[in-house]
């Protein structure tokens, strides 16, 4: 123990050496292994690890150290050694290897200043503690001594420190190593540091790059591996010399088992005295069920090999395979490569037809573990399905098996696909439910099956899977994309694409498609599909070296090529089918397009797209198109906002969205082009006007439909409902009307209504220039009359007018004994004279004038009409239409009253402008006077009402009866100004009694009156040719006679004689004459 203590002390004194190099502990081992240069370079790494290991070890040791030194025999031993050698080392400096040592140390210190400093410090410490500096002078011979053991408490700290600081000693070479080095070997640590740097660099490279680099360096490319040896195939074909192959019957479905059994037997006997004499055994799986094939020299060998194996029947018929057919037996049908993440369908069972995702593929190539969306009812149909759940009863289990095996899945009993819910399961089946892991709540076992994250995970044999033409739809696939935490779907489109590619959808390519080859030799070639035959597409290359050539490419390696901005249509089976949009982004074979209609972005495979024409929004192909207005029920209409394949989305007038199928729509409302509504400001709005909502969101849009008071507007910037919304017409204000209707107002552009006389006349009906309808005053004569109803539901019925208003009459029907209200127009009155049925107008107005007279009138009119209108136009143009006539009529009294003579000149002046005025002027004061007087007189006679009457009378004529009439009625008007009015007045007021008046007083007056009248006309003649001529021609019908008279007239009065003649000649004319005349006559005499 004492010696141990002593050594301990010694150990303490020597301990600094550890500082110098902790590595030597291993050196002895290394030495034993025979160190080489190589190992020197490897050194830093091993050293590092050793150091750490050792330091921990030492720590443990030092704890022991305190109390019990005997526990460390090794150290003692080593201490002893090191102690001894330590001195020796100091003595023998001159050994050649020592130089190396020094050199190495020197180099190390030069290179690493920091380390050097530390070392220096250490050295100083050492010096302070009075110990000589030994490191540099260590004897190379101490390689035989285990210096490493010189460790004590202090050193631990140092060592650890050193560990922390960039391994100051790694670079150093222990003298022991140096001793091992062959002479002249590189002893400095340059290469160590190089390696260090290298590693550092490697660390800096990110993992990915590193992986790639490693792969480049060490990865074995498959192509080189496969056809390393090329042997002509025909040499490999079997010949007569080769062993024969026999087909042996076995139990169908057990082929593989049998082969494995044979295999096992072969292995068992391979090293024994009697190995199996067969060469190979194999089976053909599904194609040759019930056979295993054994290759052997003799048939007898087969019997020995198969004897005693179950499921195989070598004693039955054994088939020798002909040599020719042998290669066929070995022909490999490339098995479907199933990749985890891909999609398959199940052939049978509860999930028959369901899509499943491959979770994992078993290495034996027989089974795959699938993820399936479970169809569970959680025991809700317990009674009916009881046997399915109860695993304990065998009979039931068998029953279930049969059920499943036959694939009889009762659709009614088949629960819908839903993710597994433990909550549901706990309700009735909590005893069958087990949580598999406590950490992850989403892993359950339920009824013996595993559910992870809601999916059923189950192993299936390949033969129960459909792996080709899976055609997963996006809907199905989205069920597998369990929404991520943030609700986004992480759809693995690549896996989907891979599954889809398996389906040979040859119809997805059509001649004319731009395609790109992305697989195979022609990778990267672009071209236009010329023809498609099955899976082969002939492509005419459009650019690159092969330009102009046609190449044939399998569909598999093709994809359609689009560029951003292309206008495309979705044609494939995705749910976006028939959407049209513009390509926004292309990534691999996924294309994002911006839908034209919904303004939303959708992502589809390029194979599902086809170039669309640049124009036109192709909506549905059916009866209804987007933006159509459709009738949903008698009270509801809606605007189609989206056309799906089977249904339409409709925004109805109340603003709610409905999804309807076409059969729910009663009909389509054709757009009425002239529909008009008024906005809140009262301005009219039509289709294609832009309006803005006044309240609310102030949405703005273009009117696409007007339905009663609802407007359907379209706004491109709105995404919902493809930009359509509905507002009330009273809630919008016009922003811009098509064609600038609103701004047009009255400023620019001709307004037809103002320009066109025809329109003016018609338009006059509701304009302010309209003449009021003729009014009868006093008792309506219709009252009490027996009338027939000429139109409407009561047509043909007889009744008595009980009461009337302006436009309507209450008629007591004879037949039905009740009183109805009908429009007066529809009544037929019995003419008291002729007994004919006449309408109200005639009845009320024509009576006084003498119904018979009319006919003649009509006869005369036609000839006059044109002339009249012609005659009047100038006046209209010059003096403002008929009004002057009125004005003249009404004003004349004033004039006459005010300043007769004074007026005349002004009139004359007017002559220049007006057609008629000249006549006055020409006639001179006289004409005017009588005229004016006549007017006045008439007024006087008839009262103030008369003028009002005039127009009224005329209008009524003009409107309801006939043009001829109106023209005729106007004729006097134009001609005589107010002259006719009194006539009418008298008509109505006097009734039939007037005629005598005409004859008596008027005739005289006519003579005088008409002359002045006619007189102006010639005057007109003189001034402006047309007017008089018109006037004359107008008169002409009255008879041929007047005309000559007129001619004579021009000069003097004789005309009067002529004038009466026509009147007398024509029954009607007198009325006229009477009409016109009376006034004038009245007037004329008075002056």
């Amino acid at each position, binding site marked *: 123990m004492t010696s141990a203590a002593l050594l301990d002390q010694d150990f303490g004194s020597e301990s600094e050496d550890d500082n110098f190099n902790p590595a030597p502990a291993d050196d002895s081992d290394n030495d034993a292994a025979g160190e080489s240069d190589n190992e020197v370079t490897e050194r830093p790494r091993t050293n590092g690890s050793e150091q750490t290991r050792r330091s921990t070890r030492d720590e443990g040791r030092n704890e022991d150290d305190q109390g019990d030194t005997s526990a460390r025999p090794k150290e003692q031993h080593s201490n002893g050694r090191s102690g001894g050698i330590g001195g020796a080392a100091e003595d023998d400096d001159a050994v050649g290897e020592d130089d190396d040592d020094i050199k190495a140390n020197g180099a190390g210190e030069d290179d690493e200043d920091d380390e050097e400093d530390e070392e220096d410090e250490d050295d100083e410490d050492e010096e302070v503690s009075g110990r000589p500096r030994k490191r540099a002078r260590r004897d190379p011979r101490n390689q035989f001594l285990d210096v490493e053991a010189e460790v004590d408490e202090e050193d631990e700290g140092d060592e650890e420190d050193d560990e922390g600081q960039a391994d100051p000693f790694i670079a150093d070479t222990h003298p022991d190593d140096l001793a091992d080095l062959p002479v002249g070997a590189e002893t400095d640590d340059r290469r160590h540091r190089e390696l260090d740097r290298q590693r550092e660099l490697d660390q800096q490279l990110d993992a990915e790059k590193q992986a790639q680099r490693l792969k480049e360096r060490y990865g074995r490319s498959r192509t080189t591996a496969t056809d390393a040896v090329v042997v002509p195939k025909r040499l490999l074909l079997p010949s007569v010399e080769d062993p024969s192959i026999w087909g042996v019957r076995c139990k169908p479905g057990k082929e593989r088992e049998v082969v494995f059994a044979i295999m096992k037997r072969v292995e068992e006997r391979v090293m024994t005295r009697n190995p199996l004499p067969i060469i190979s055994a194999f089976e053909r799986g599904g194609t040759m069920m019930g056979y295993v094939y054994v290759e052997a020299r003799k048939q007898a060998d087969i019997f020995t090999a198969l004897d005693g194996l179950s499921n195989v029947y070598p004693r039955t018929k054994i088939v020798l395979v002909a040599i020719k057919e042998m290669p066929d037996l070995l022909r490999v049908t490339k098995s479907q490569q199933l990749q985890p993440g891909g999609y398959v369908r199940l052939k049978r069972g509860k999930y028959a037809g369901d899509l499943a995702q491959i979770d994992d593929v078993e290495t034996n190539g027989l089974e795959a573990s699938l993820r399936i969306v479970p169809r569970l009812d959680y025991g809700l149909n317990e009674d009916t399905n009881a046997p399915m759940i109860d695993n304990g009863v065998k009979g039931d289990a068998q029953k279930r098996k049969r059920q499943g095996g036959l694939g009889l899945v009762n659709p009614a009993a088949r629960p819908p696909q839903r993710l597994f819910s433990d909550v549901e399961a706990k309700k009735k089946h909590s005893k069958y439910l087990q949580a598999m892991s406590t950490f992850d709540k989403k892993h359950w076992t339920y009824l013996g099956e595993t559910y992870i994250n809601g999916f059923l995970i189950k192993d299936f044999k390949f033969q129960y899977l459909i792996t080709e033409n899976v055609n997963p739809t996006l809907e199905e696939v989205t069920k597998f994309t369990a929404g991520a935490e943030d609700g986004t779907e992480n759809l693995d489109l690549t896996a989907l694409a891979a599954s889809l590619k398996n389906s040979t959808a040859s119809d997805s390519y059509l001649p004319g498609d731009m395609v790109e080859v992305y697989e195979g030799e022609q990778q990267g070639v672009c071209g236009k599909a010329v023809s498609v035959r099955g899976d082969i597409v002939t492509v005419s290359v459009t650019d690159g070296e092969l330009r102009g050539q046609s190449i044939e490419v399998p569909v598999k390696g093709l994809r359609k090529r689009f560029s*951003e*901005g292309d206008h495309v249509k979705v044609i494939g089976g995705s749910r976006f089918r028939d959407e049209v949009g*513009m390509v926004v982004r292309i990534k691999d074979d996924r294309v*994002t397009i911006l839908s034209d209609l919904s303004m939303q972005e959708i992502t589809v495979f390029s194979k599902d797209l086809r170039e669309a024409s640049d*124009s036109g929004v192709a909506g549905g192909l059916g009866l209804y198109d987007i933006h159509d207005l459709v009738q949903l029920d008698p009270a509801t209409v809606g605007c189609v906002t989206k056309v799906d394949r089977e249904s339409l989305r409709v925004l109805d007038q109340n603003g709610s969205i409905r999804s309807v199928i076409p059969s729910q729509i009663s009909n389509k409302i054709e757009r009425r082009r002239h529909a008009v509504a008024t906005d809140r400001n009262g301005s009219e709005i039509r289709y294609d006007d832009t309006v803005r909502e006044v309240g609310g969101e102030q949405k703005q849009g273009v009117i696409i439909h007007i339905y009663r008071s609802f407007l359907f507007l379209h706004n491109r910037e709105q*995404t919902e409902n493809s930009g359509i919304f509905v507002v009330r017409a009273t809630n919008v204000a016009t922003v811009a009307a098509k064609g600038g209707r609103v701004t047009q107002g009255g400023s*620019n552009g001709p307004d037809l209504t103002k320009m066109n006389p025809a329109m003016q006349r018609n338009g006059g009906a509701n304009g302010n220039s309209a003449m009021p309808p003729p009014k009868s005053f006093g008792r309506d004569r219709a009252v009490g009359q027996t009338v027939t109803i000429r139109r409407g539901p009561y047509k043909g019925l007889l009744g008595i007018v009980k009461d009337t208003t302006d436009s309507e009459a209450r008629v007591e029907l004879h037949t039905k004994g009740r009183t109805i209200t009908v429009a007066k127009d529809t009544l037929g009155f019995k003419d008291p004279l002729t007994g004919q049925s006449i309408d109200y107008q005639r009845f009320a107005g024509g009576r006084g004038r003498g119904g018979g007279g009319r006919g003649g009138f009509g006869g005369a009119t036609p000839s006059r009409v044109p002339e009249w209108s012609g005659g009047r136009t100038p006046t209209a143009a010059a003096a403002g239409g008929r009004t002057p006539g009125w004005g003249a009529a009404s004003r004349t009294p004033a004039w006459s009253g005010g300043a007769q003579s004074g007026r005349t000149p002004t009139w004359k002046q007017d002559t220049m402008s007006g057609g008629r005025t000249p006549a006055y002027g020409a006639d001179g004061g006289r004409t005017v006077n009588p005229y004016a007087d006549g007017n006045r007189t008439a007024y006087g006679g008839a009262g103030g009402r008369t003028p009002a009457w005039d127009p009224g009378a005329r209008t009524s004529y003009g409107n309801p009866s006939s043009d001829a009439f109106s023209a005729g009625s106007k004729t006097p008007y134009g001609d005589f100004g107010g002259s006719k009015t009194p006539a009418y007045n008298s008509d109505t007021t006097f009734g039939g009694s007037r005629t005598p008046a005409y004859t008596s007083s008027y005739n005289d007056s006519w003579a005088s009156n008409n002359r002045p009248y006619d007189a102006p006309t010639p005057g007109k003649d003189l001034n402006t040719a047309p007017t008089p001529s018109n006037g004359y021609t107008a008169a002409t019908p009255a008879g041929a006679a007047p005309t000559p008279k007129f001619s004579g007239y021009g000069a003097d009065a004789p005309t009067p004689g002529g004038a009466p003649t026509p009147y007398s000649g024509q029954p009607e004319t007198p009325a006229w004459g009477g009409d016109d005349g009376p006034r004038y006559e009245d007037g004329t005499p008075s002056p």
Partner: protein
Amino acid sequence: MFFLYELERVISLHPSFFGPRVKEYLTNRLLEDVEGTCTGQYYIICVMDAYDISEGRVIPGSAVAEYTVHYRAVVWRPFKGETVDAIVSSVNRMGVFADVGPLPVFVSYHLIPSDIKWDPNATPPQYTDNGDQVIEKGTHLRIKLMGTRSDVGNMFAIGSIKEDFLGTL
């Protein structure tokens, strides 16, 4: 791109316009009808002159007369690949709508540089790179047209600002 383009239009005129100023009416009508419209292919910006007005032909059965007017107009036709300046009209999560004169252009967020991000919390919502580039309503943008679509009476385009020298001005 702007073009001076020769076009023709058939104008029918009500008889009430027949008269000495018929040409004036025709020209007025032409300007009213045509200026500022879109044919689906291009926009007619401005009618320069109506250089040839045919004789009127009265349509049998109606009194309306037809005139064929040949005129020169400045038209603007947007092309795929053309770079245009636009004013942003609205901004949403999917991208930016901008107006190039009469033409609405949509710039999808796919076609916006990835450093310019959608910021729905800003008022108004905007695309921004948190630097000097802010795209909101009213921003002036330089856009490259990626594709155009023409409907009957209007056009639409999508654009990109994901290239050098494009983006905010």
